[in-house]
């Protein structure tokens, strides 16, 4: 009963014959996790271009001191929208969207646990994002001057109070994020339930691909983190619109409480943004090293540990707030602790490569780049956790350097790796390897050129969120370097986008299993049929396809 055969007819242009309206309609009403996943990724990429353009304008403004390319108002909107976009409309949707696409396939399920909730989540995210950007038109009412939010992505009180933030821009920020947040909650819940309840036969928890483990923890973190954010945003909304006083110091309200609420969300959020990336890398590295992942149980334990610890380190964003020595020491210690499970992951990836037979196809390039860059970002994170050092560099460009290393060098590199890895599965065609390699090296060079100098300008005394910087403080060189790197990055991004678009029509046909990989998604056609698997699979180990390819030496006995 050879049921799982290639379906060349479906590759790429299976629906090519239908009129456009019909096709669009099918996408709009779909509840299929794969289509929703693709829509998540596509909208996330569009927002990435928008956020990247915003960043490019900022860098152009900061290319030299006392520049007046943009006004202070515009600059303040730019970094607010850039940060908010990248975190809520790029990172979250792309990662959750890829989880959406991959998790059911990897655990041998037919779809997500609640397909309709899934579609609902996607549309909430999209409308939330559009609402946020609608602020450019509507923030002061349709007849006034338009202003986007300009309070920074963490919107510290009391700058967000009516007194200091007039007009409606901050309300757009609150509502846009809140609506897309509901979407994330729906998707997070869906991921958790799918992973716990929908695994195929034989897929015990300890046989799940690591990506599924990471997504499980991410789902739980989403549930734990977005509730408080929503609650705090409701309070802020009440402050601004009903005259409540939660964060209003004039009436005894506390500006510091907002910071606690925000970072109780904000810190788990950054792990929500990196755990899926860890997951991608944990799938890519073994495949291209031709080795089983090193130390699977410890990897799982480390993931769970990161999940727990990340809930108790939030105030490391507040060392300069004046919490007192005891709290500073506590949060410093907790933050250091997270280096241990994260380090375990780094070492286990290197351990997987050790003794392997590494093929540097484009996904592996990005995954290796991820490991190298993330280590730098992690180490600067460790430096920030050292409270006295943080007193100097907090809110300076050093922090900006730190988080771009983890967010871009970490998350975005892993996302690009994952796109290159799973594109053949989702589209049925291969990406162009030469173009992919060019884009990697351009991004890699441009990324380091942009973000490494930021550490130096930060330590030299350059605060973040300034629309212009002082001449004669030794900052010119570092800023012009940062700005010039953006050109290379933009070239890399354009190449990737071009590759993604072009290969959908022109790429070589992929076949089911182009990378000779071991997880379940490669056992079905590319792209997979709507029901994923013709016969519900049964697995006997962590690498079901290894067992198939090496019947003489299956995995199960080593686990």
């Amino acid at each position, binding site marked *: 009963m050879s049921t799982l055969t290639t379906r060349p007819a479906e590759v790429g242009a299976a629906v090519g014959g239908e009129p456009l309206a019909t096709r669009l309609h099918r996408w709009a009403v779909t509840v299929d996790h794969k289509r929703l996943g693709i829509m998540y990724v596509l909208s996330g990429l569009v927002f990435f271009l928008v956020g990247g353009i915003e960043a490019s304008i900022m860098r152009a403004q900061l290319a030299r001191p006392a520049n007046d390319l943009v006004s202070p108002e515009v600059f303040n909107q730019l970094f607010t929208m850039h940060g908010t976009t990248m975190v809520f409309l790029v990172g979250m949707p792309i990662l959750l969207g890829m989880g959406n696409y991959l998790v059911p396939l990897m655990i041998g399920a037919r779809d997500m646990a609640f397909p309709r909730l899934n579609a609902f989540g996607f549309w909430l995210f999209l409308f939330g994002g559009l609402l946020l950007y609608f602020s450019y038109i509507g923030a002061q009412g349709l007849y006034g001057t338009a202003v986007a939010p300009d309070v920074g992505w963490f919107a510290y009180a009391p*700058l967000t109070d009516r007194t200091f933030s007039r007009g409606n821009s901050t309300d757009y920020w609150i509502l846009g994020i809140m609506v897309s947040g509901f979407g994330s909650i729906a998707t997070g819940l869906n991921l958790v339930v799918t992973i716990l309840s929908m695994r195929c036969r034989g897929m015990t928890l300890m046989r799940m691909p690591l990506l599924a483990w990471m997504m499980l923890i991410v789902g739980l973190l989403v549930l734990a983190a977005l509730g408080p954010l929503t609650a705090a945003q409701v309070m802020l909304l009440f402050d601004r619109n009903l005259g409540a006083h939660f964060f209003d110091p*004039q009436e005894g309200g506390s500006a510091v409480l907002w910071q606690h609420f925000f970072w109780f969300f904000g810190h788990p959020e950054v792990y929500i943004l990196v755990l899926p990336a860890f997951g991608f890398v944990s799938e890519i590295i073994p495949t291209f090293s031709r080795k089983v992942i090193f130390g699977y149980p410890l990897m799982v334990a480390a993931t769970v540990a990161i999940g727990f610890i990340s809930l108790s380190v939030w105030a490391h964003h507040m060392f300069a707030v004046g919490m007192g020595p005891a709290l500073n020491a506590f949060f410093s210690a907790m933050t250091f602790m997270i280096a241990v499970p994260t380090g375990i992951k780094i070492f286990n990836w290197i351990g997987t490569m050790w003794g392997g037979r590494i093929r540097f196809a484009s996904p592996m390039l990005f995954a290796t780049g991820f490991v190298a860059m993330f280590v730098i970002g992690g180490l600067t994170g460790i430096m920030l956790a050292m409270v*006295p050092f943080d007193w100097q560099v907090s809110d300076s460009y050093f922090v900006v350097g730190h988080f771009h290393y983890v967010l871009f060098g970490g998350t975005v590199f892993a996302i690009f790796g994952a796109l290159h890895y799973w594109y053949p599965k989702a589209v049925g065609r291969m990406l162009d390897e030469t173009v992919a390699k060019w884009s990697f090296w351009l991004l890699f060079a441009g990324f380091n050129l942009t973000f490494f100098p930021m550490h130096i300008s930060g330590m030299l005394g350059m605060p973040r969120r300034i629309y212009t910087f002082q001449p004669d403080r030794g900052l010119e060189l570092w800023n012009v370097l940062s700005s010039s790197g953006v050109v290379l990055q933009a070239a890399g991004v354009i190449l990737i986008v071009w590759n993604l678009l072009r290969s959908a029509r022109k790429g070589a046909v992929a076949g089911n299993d182009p990378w000779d990989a071991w997880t379940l998604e490669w056992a079905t056609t590319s792209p997979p049929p709507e029901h994923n698997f013709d016969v519900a699979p049964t697995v006997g180990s962590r690498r079901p396809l290894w067992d198939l390819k090496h019947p003489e030496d299956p995995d199960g006995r080593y686990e």
Partner: protein
Amino acid sequence: MRRGSAVRGDAGSKREVRFSLRSAGSRCGSLALAWAIPGFAAAAPPIAPDSLSEICDPSTGLPMPAIPTMFDPASPPAADIEALTWLLFGICAAIFVVVQGALVHAIIKYRARRRDEAAGDEPRQVYGSNPVELAWTVIPVVIVFVLTLASVRLIRDIERTSPPEGALKVVVIGHQWWWEYRYPDLGIVTANELVVPAERPVWLELHSADVNHSWWVPQLAGKMDCIPGHPNTLWFEADRPGVYLGQCAEYCGNQHANMLLRVEARAVDGPLGFDAWVANQQSPPVDDDSTTPGRDVFLALACQSCHDIAGVSEGAFGPNLTHLMSRATLGAGVAPLDRDSLRQWVDDPQTLKPGCNMPSLKLDTNQLDAVVDYLASLR
């Protein structure tokens, strides 16, 4: 990498413990730096040697570093932090070298060769190794433990809960987008430029009149936020007379970028000394008949509703102008305080500091000249 020692020596001898920690730190840091990644190494030279070359502040004659950075500390908290920084660099550079070294080694050594690929079979599958995994769990635990101890110890040393003995007390109030300084024990109120005696501890009480700000002068101490309804404290003690620059480090709205900080640490005695400054600040404002027309304009216009000039007006929304001309800069550092820029400022502050909270009052030329004459007399 011996650069820092010449300057730091004298401060270090006063504080035995700190000095040893610091030199250990910088030795360790230098060692690592010597062979660390090009990035770190490249970063080092411009940070230090430049900042040691000092220039003279034109208005006070006080020395001023070319680059006011945390790597040229002039006060115990900043010096301690600098020492710690080198230690941190050292540890992180070592971890960096080990991890990236292993990664690069794996990349080079275990790269697939064509012949392997042809062979088609897979390399040996290694599922894990308890001793190895234990090692790379325990070693980081130890490192992290050491880091925690260092962190906790320095927090305790620096973050004081009560003023150091003999400290000068100053209340700092952040405003959008300028600084107010009050010396409660001396009865002085001034703005934007903090004048303190060198070699005497200073105890700052940080407040905010509106939104969050952060007081950051890297050479003196780490930053501390000014939060409405949540007073904070910070201390420093300038080792040597000098001008120390910084700027507001917490995003506070439109002109956050132009909310600069300037601290003048002066010797106690002498015509430019701290005591002389205090005496001048405590004296009533200049009242010269020749400037009466300007004063009248000042009082007739809205100026007086926002600005305080002792004995003349009592506004509290803008900076105190009683001894305006004793300051070196205008508008929290956006321009040097000379007649031209003062005139431009009073004419339309938005041209110098777009977005600031002082409107242009659209004075005619006569009024403008009169007011500027008057302001220029407020020494």
